[in-house]
């Protein structure tokens, strides 16, 4: 009932019936063509410079970044980060095939468990779908192998991303996602730009409000 009331009231205000063909054509076109708006030129760079921009923008949002040559180097880099933060050598990760392919057993002291977070884990490792240089933003997509809880509950979040997946702007990432998933948009798409923060007390900027206090990005391979 409310539905008809609201739509009726909107149509009265707009002076339309809702059946006008030209209006339908305009909206259907926009939805199917999803035209790009103004895309800042900031991210239109060579792959190397794009990665540098990503690193700089991430640093502004209090995130850190390390480049590693191959997936084989990830376990040692993860262990190094945990040690630098005085954390136990334990991580929880999703079952993403790219994380499965990493030789975790090479880092003997590192304890690796797989699955969602129940709030007790201090550190998690996720694999990003893409990264956006424009603002230093990571794009993560939920699914059976990528639990969303890993992005928010642990105190430290380590995100692995392939160097070739660092895009200049968000629009490039949307197109890649559409290509990958078709009409079945993922349940959750997370844009993450830096570590959790709040300035609600006297406008003093503090990190680690409810989400991770630390965000560390491992970029794998050459850009």
């Amino acid at each position: 009932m409310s539905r008809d009331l609201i739509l009726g009231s909107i149509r009265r205000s707009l002076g339309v019936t809702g059946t006008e063909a030209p209006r339908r054509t305009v909206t259907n076109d926009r939805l199917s063509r999803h035209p790009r708006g103004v895309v800042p030129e900031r991210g239109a760079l060579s792959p190397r410079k794009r990665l540098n921009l990503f690193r700089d923008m991430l640093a502004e949002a209090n995130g850190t970044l390390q480049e590693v040559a191959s997936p084989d180097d990830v376990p040692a880099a993860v262990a190094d980060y945990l040690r630098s933060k005085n954390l136990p050598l334990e991580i929880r990760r999703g079952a993403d095939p790219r994380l499965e392919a990493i030789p975790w057993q090479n880092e003997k002291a590192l304890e690796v468990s797989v699955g969602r977070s129940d709030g007790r884990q201090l550190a998690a490792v996720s694999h990003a779908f893409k990264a956006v240089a424009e603002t230093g933003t990571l794009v993560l997509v939920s699914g059976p192998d990528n639990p969303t809880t890993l992005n928010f509950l642990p105190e430290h979040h380590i995100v692995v991303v392939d160097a070739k997946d660092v895009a200049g702007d968000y629009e490039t990432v949307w197109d890649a996602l559409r290509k990958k998933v078709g009409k079945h948009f993922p349940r959750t798409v997370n844009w993450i730009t830096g570590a959790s923060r709040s300035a609600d007390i006297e406008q003093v900027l503090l990190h680690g409000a409810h989400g991770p206090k630390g965000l560390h990005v491992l970029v794998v391979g050459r850009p």
Partner: protein
Amino acid sequence: MTVQIASPKFKSNARAALKDAQLQRALGKVEQGFVGKRRMVADRLPEFEALRDLARDIKDHTLAHLDLYLEAWERRATEQGGQVHWAATAEDARRIILDICKRRGAKTVTKGKSMIAEEIGLNDHLVEHGVTPVETDLGEYIIQLRHEAPSHIIAPAIHLNKDQIEADFRRAHAELPPERNLEEPASLMAEARAVLREKFLAADVGITGANFLIAETGSSVIVTNEGNGDLTQTLPKVHIVLASIEKVVPTLEDATTILRVLARSATGQEMSVYTTFSTGPRREGDPDGPEEYHVVILDNGRSSTLGGKFREMLRCIRCGACMNHCPVYAAVGGHAYGWVYPGPMGAVLTPSLIGIDKAGHLPNASTFCGRCEEVCPVRIPLPKLMRHWREREFERHLSPATVRWGLGFWAFFARRPWLYRPATRLAMKTLARFGGRRGRMHWLPLAGSWTRHRDFPVPERDTFQAQWKKRLKAEAKQKAEAEAAAREAEKAEEKARENVT
């Protein structure tokens, strides 16, 4: 907490706020925090102004096709397993949300920051029916402990100092050791994090607002810096999104364009920390996420606003830039406005939602300096809209007798120029005599409420019209002299040429 309407008392609220030393100290930080940071990120993005134009156009386009985009969004959201509930009024929305909570036997509900939840008085309604709401945004949590309304739409506790918050935490978290140190903002935040973490994990239902609904994908979008919205919507079995009808945008690209101006205008960040696009409930095989995903879509008078002079207000994306840049907000803070939405956007929106009879003071509480319009990311002409409310207030005979009498008196003269000119000339001469040589007046008849707080400047000796006339005369004289000089020069030149030949 439900916000009681205190807008009719704006004048006494403002007087009290001006005398409140603690509040004045807190308000002093608004300008140094938000304004400078916004300027910096806007300046470093060459496309910022073009993005603002485009954000405005996207909103206008969507509003002109609102019925169709809402239908498209509903279709997609439902296809992906979402449940859409339409709520024409605040009461409808409260009933729908309570029904969902009851059906799931919910005892506690975590909440992300939602101004619409404040607008419909959701928390009190839940409490009355045995459901405990827990605000999880740090600022909202603090004001919930104090049973206060937010004083800013993105920084709800901006009116408080840390000593007050420390006292609240000691009172509310009585089970923690009393000797603990809570002197620093960091220790306060750490305590809130620990206390709220338990609430997140125990909640039966999570309620968030929405910054956008996306028609293309059927998604809802929230933007936070703390991550509280994500814990609110990911951990409980049920996620309820509370959104108003004007939140819909057509595509992911359109949402992206507006996101590029939202955080920059709000907090001066390049992008907020967490921007989350949610579409439907947990999918098969997903290890986490809610089992049910509901969207309550609220009208509450907005569809009528769409048809009138105030349609442009529906472009608002709730960034708070207008209040951050408002001299009136900076002087009296958000609570003086007496309801959910303060500052310039509140001065335009509140009369539409609670009536001009109750909120008439708000559009009058403006210096019309225009800074709000200058910084609005979707270019809402806020001063013009406030003026419309003033006109409507006058038309409906709601303005006080002194204002009406004064305006009538002025209009009598203004419509009779032959009377107006000598009258103003006389008034100015009189005022000048009052002011004497100091050029300022400490007291003026009929203007006591002005001169009590500051001096009244003595007017220039002449009226504007008289000065303008003088200026035109002087310009004409100058022009005539210049022309005469040019003629002389020409003549001299001619003579010189004749002499040569």
